[in-house]
C-alpha cells in the first residue's frame, strides 16, 4: 500500500482473503486472474474455467504446454487432481444455475445497485464481442468486481447509473477497489472497508454518491 490506495496486486491480495475454504470460483480474464496468486495456502479453492473445466491449476510452464488444455483467456493451463471436464452447455449451465460460489470480474463501470458494464465501451466503430461476460455476470452466488475506483482521468467508475452498455442488471454483490471495498445492492452502495487513511467523505466526493456505511466495521 502506498498512502491511501492499493496497487492492483494489493486489491487482488485483499480480495483473496475473502474467498472461503472449499469455494468454487471463476476468475474473469485480465485483472481478476491476479487473485489466483494470493489464495491462502491453507485453503482449498477450486477454480472453474467456463470453457469446460473444474480443478484448473496454474498456468502451464514452457515445455509443458498442452494445446487441449487452456483457460477462458486461451492461455495454456494445468490440471489438478480431482479435476473434471465438461462441454459448454454443461459449463454455462453450471454458472447460470448458481453453483459457483464466487465469480471475480473487471469492469468499466459498476452502479451503486450492482449493475455491471464491462463488455462494450459503446464506441460506434468498435467490433462488438461479448464472449462469456454476460453469463459470468449472473453466473455465481457472489459476483465480485475488482477495479480502480477512478479512471486515469479521475472520474469515478462507481456510478449512480452506468453510461456504458450494461453486461448485467443488479448482479454485482461486492466491489473491491484501490480506495475501499463496497457492498452493492438495491439500497445502494455501502462502504465496508477503507484503504489507508481514505475517508468516507473523500469517497462521497469522488463518486458523487450518498454511500452508506457499515457501522460495525468503520
Amino acid at each position: 500500500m502506498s498512502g491511501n490506495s492499493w496497487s492492483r496486486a494489493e486489491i487482488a491480495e485483499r480480495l483473496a482473503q475473502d474467498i472461503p475454504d472449499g469455494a468454487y470460483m471463476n476468475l474473469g480474464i485480465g485483472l481478476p486472474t491476479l487473485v489466483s496468486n494470493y489464495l491462502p495456502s491453507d485453503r482449498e479453492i477450486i477454480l472453474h474455467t467456463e470453457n469446460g473445466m473444474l480443478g484448473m491449476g496454474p498456468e502451464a510452464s514452457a515445455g509443458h504446454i498442452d494445446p487441449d488444455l487452456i483457460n477462458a483467456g486461451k492461455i495454456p493451463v494445468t490440471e489438478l487432481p480431482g479435476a473434471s471436464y465438461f462441454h459448454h452447455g454443461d459449463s454455462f449451465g453450471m454458472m447460470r444455475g448458481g453453483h459457483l460460489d464466487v465469480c471475480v470480474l473487471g469492469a468499466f463501470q459498476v452502479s451503486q445497485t450492482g449493475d455491471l458494464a464491462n463488455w462494450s465501451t459503446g464506441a460506434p466503430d468498435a467490433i462488438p464481442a461479448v464472449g462469456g461476460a454476460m453469463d459470468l455476470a449472473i453466473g455465481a452466488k457472489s459476483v465480485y468486481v475488482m477495479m480502480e475506483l477512478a479512471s486515469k482521468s479521475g472520474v469515478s467508475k462507481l456510478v449512480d447509473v452506468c453510461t456504458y452498455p450494461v453486461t448485467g442488471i443488479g448482479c454485482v454483490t461486492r466491489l473491491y477497489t484501490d480506495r475501499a471495498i463496497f457492498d452493492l445492492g438495491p439500497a445502494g452502495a455501502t462502504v465496508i472497508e477503507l484503504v489507508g487513511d481514505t475517508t468516507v467523505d473523500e469517497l462521497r466526493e469522488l463518486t458523487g454518491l450518498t454511500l452508506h456505511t457499515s457501522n460495525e466495521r468503520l
Partner: protein
Amino acid sequence: MISKISESAAAALADIADGSTIMIGGFGLAGQPVQLIDALLEQGASDLTVVSNNAGNGDTGLAALIGSKRVKKIICSFPRQVDSYIFDALYRAGEIELELVPQGNLAERIRAAGAGIGAFFTPTGFGTTLAEGKETRVINGRDYVLEHPIFADFALISAYRADRLGNLTYRKTSRNFGPIMASAAAVSVAQVDRIVPLGDLDPEAVVTPGIFVNRVVETGDRFEKEEWADVR
C-alpha cells in the same frame, strides 16, 4: 455393418450446399476442426451461415473462409480478437452479418436444438442491448429473456477418438462445443486423431454417442507436431 468412416475430410464435406448453416466447434485452437475447415474452404460452398464461438484468427482456417466472402452471416459470441482483421474489415464494410450471442446462451441455444426444446427463458443478457426486442418474463421474481434454438445443416467438430459407430471421446478442454453441436446439426462430421476398433471406447466414458455423429475422419495424432509447442 454400420461404418461412419469417411475416406477424407473432402469426402466428408462433399455434399455441403450453398446457403447451408454450418456449426464449427472449438474454443481457441482447442477443439478446432482444422482439417475440416480447410476442406470446407477447398469445397467451395458459399452463402454460408457459420455458427462458431469466434470469427477466425489470422488469415487461415475460418478467417480464410470469411475472407473468401462465402460467409454471409456469423452467429458467435466473440468475433473481436487481436488478429481477427479479416472479419473486422468485412464487418466494418457491411459485407458480413453478425448475430452476437452471449457464450452461454449460444451454448444453450445449440443444446436446445439438439434436445428438441422449442425455446427457453434465460437470465443471461436481460436488460442489455443483446436482448433488445426479445420477449422477457419475470419468473419467481427474476428477469428472463426468451431464446430460441440454433439448428445447423452441418456441424464440423474435432474429437480425440472415434469408433465406426461414431462414438466420440474428447481431450480436456477441447470438448467445448463438440457434443452440443453434434446434437444440433442434420449432418455431424467429426475429425478425430484416431479411429479405434469397436469396443475399445469405455461405454461409461463416451461423451458423444454415435447417434449424433454421421461421419468421422481420421486426421492423425496432433501432438507430434512442432507447431503445438509454442501455441499460446
